């Protein structure tokens, strides 16, 4: 294992030490958890969390990790996969599976690319992975004898485009025009949720939907096409931070460790049939985000607006997480400053 990977393991363990709270994990003991899309940002963080619980809380847990390609995951988190007898890896396309290991009791279905570039370049592939992949998984899940819970990772985009200042609640649905090419991802995610509803109804599967918003942290590819990644990439490369538009777009970011802990709680403690938002309810404009990253860099980095020739259209993507907080008492342990600071530290270590 490389020195960088050992540092990565210790780094993440430090983060998980902060987020893991004393809750009843007995239902997880002696069970098997399947994570689809296990090689992505969310999948790696969940694997880290389960691995942490196996190590620190002496849980007897088998992890089945399903994804098409583990190259990125194995490079970034070698410490997780090397000689880990608790982990079984299945390299396959979610659309192609016919059967799941019959001892699977818990499923976290995170297979889908949130990358806008993929949605635009390979829209049919992106949509099929979500719709056909979810249908295939649900059909397999319906045959599992011991299934206790299935967390369907949907998207905050199922609500449509929001331009008002109110936080997006689990009921804030706006319509969007399905004839527009770029809404295919949202439509696919909505249909996947509908499929979950149908399987919950017809087969009585215990399914919970989670609608994630925006995240930041280790295991995100620094060239991912989101503002926070672009800004951090600019910063770690000592380039000026470039903001598209006038910087008034509003986002919010939850740290990876908080995300993983909240997901586990939703799996174990959420109510079947519910949909929960997942993210940080504290809004920040892209301009403020760039300024924070600039200050955290400790260097004199310039912030450039992309010529500011255009006043940006209102764009607000911030969730209300009142429901999850009220039902499960969840709290975020990393605010935006700490989340950014940890992420920058991670990328700087990776560069070294």
């Amino acid at each position, binding site marked *: 294992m490389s020195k960088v990977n050992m540092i990565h393991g210790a780094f993440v363990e430090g983060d998980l030490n902060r987020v893991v709270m004393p809750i009843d994990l007995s239902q997880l003991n002696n069970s098997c958890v399947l994570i689809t899309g296990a090689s992505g940002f969310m999948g790696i963080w969940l694997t880290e969390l389960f691995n942490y619980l196996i190590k620190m809380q002496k849980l007897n847990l088998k992890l089945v990790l399903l994804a098409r390609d583990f190259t990125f995951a194995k490079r970034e988190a070698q410490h997780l996969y090397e000689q880990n007898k608790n982990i079984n890896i299945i390299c396959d396309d979610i659309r192609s599976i016919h059967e799941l290991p019959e001892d699977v009791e818990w499923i976290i279905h995170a297979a889908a690319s949130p990358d*806008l*570039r993929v*949605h*635009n*370049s390979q829209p049919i592939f992106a949509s099929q992975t979500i719709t056909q992949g979810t249908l295939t998984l649900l059909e397999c899940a319906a045959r599992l004898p011991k299934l206790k819970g299935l967390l369907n990772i949907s998207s905050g985009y199922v609500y449509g485009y929001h331009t008002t200042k109110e936080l997006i609640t689990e009921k804030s649905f706006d319509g969007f025009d399905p004839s527009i*090419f*770029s809404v295919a991802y949202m439509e696919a995610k909505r249909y996947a949720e509908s499929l979950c509803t149908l399987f919950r109804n017809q087969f009585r599967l215990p399914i919970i939907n989670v609608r994630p918003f925006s995240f930041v942290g280790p295991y995100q590819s620094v*060239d991912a*096409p989101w503002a926070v990644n*672009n800004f951090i*990439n*600019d910063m770690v*490369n000592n*380039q*000026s931070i*470039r903001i*598209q*538009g006038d910087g008034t777009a509003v986002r919010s970011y939850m740290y990876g460790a908080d995300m993983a802990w909240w997901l586990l709680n939703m799996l174990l403690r959420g109510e079947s049939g519910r949909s929960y938002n997942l993210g940080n309810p504290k809004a920040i404009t892209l301009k403020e985000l760039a300024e924070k990253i600039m200050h955290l860099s400790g260097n004199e980095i310039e912030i450039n607006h*992309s*010529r500011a*020739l*255009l006043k*940006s*259209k209102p*764009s607000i993507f911030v969730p209300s997480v009142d429901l999850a907080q009220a039902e499960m008492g969840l709290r975020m342990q990393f605010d935006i400053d700490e989340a950014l600071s940890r992420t920058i530290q991670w990328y700087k270590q990776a560069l070294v």
Partner: protein
Amino acid sequence: MQNQGRRVLICDPTLRDGNHAVRHQLTCEQITKYAVAANAAGVPVIEVGHGNGLGASSLQVGLSKTDDKSALEAARKALTTTKLGIHIIPGFATIKKDLRLALDVGVDVFRIATHCTEADITERHISHIRGHGREVYGVLMMSHMASEAVLVEEASKMQAYGAEGVVIMDSAGAYLPSDVTVRIGALVNTLGIPVGFHGHNNLGMAIANSIAAVNAGAVIIDGTARGFGAGAGNTQLEALVAVFDKLKIQTGIDLYKVLDAGDVAEKYLIETLPTISSVSIVSGLSGVFSGYVKPVNRIASEYKLDPRDIFFELGRRKVVAGQEDMIIEVATDLSKRG
């Protein structure tokens, strides 16, 4: 005034599109002369390179007299405030061979271009430049060949890849102002990034089309000195700046000095001032890329054909830039038909 306070970004491809008009024979000395003049005028961005962009020098579309590296370095040395830009068509230009060179030379603005229905092929190039923190724009060429709905879809892809703006090109000079209004309006209403327009003058509409673009919400407009460019030429930069001055649209360009830059271009760069020739008009009417004018004329003469017939047949076959091989095929077919 309605336009008071409105600003547009002028991008000047004289040293790139103009290369079409001189069979890609611009020299480092000519590049330096014009770059100094454009810089003095406060032109925000100039584009430099082979007419079809970086890495395009080839037997098929014409060999450059000056290699890309020398051309870019000559311009780089001459510019202090004006940004150095390049035009790139993936396929001609590769990331390893060409983009790396441009990044090393210090190019500021990258415009990644593709046929108007093929935005998918720009993903890697746009993402690569974004990763290096440079300005990157998407360019949809031959935009008259697609409906506004298709242009919106393709431009949305470029936005998703990280483009900071999208420019549509009227590569064949085929638009009327109403066409521009519809297309630019649709893009402005849909995209969250600046929209631009690059005109050609085949039907004498380049300035009018540029005004229509700005009125529909475009904030990036291309123009070249004396209209030096493919076919009947581009939107004439000096006239464009003057018209925008009159309309109270800010360009940040010094009028007298841009007029001087036009004189420099005429004296040192241009062999024949662009005119709206009969063949150029036919190019515009048939919707065939302006850069076809010279090779069509040459092949028509060789095959003893009327170049206008070749243009209309090329238009019927919906050829795009880079398919110059088709000219001979069309000429052969027309000859057989007698």
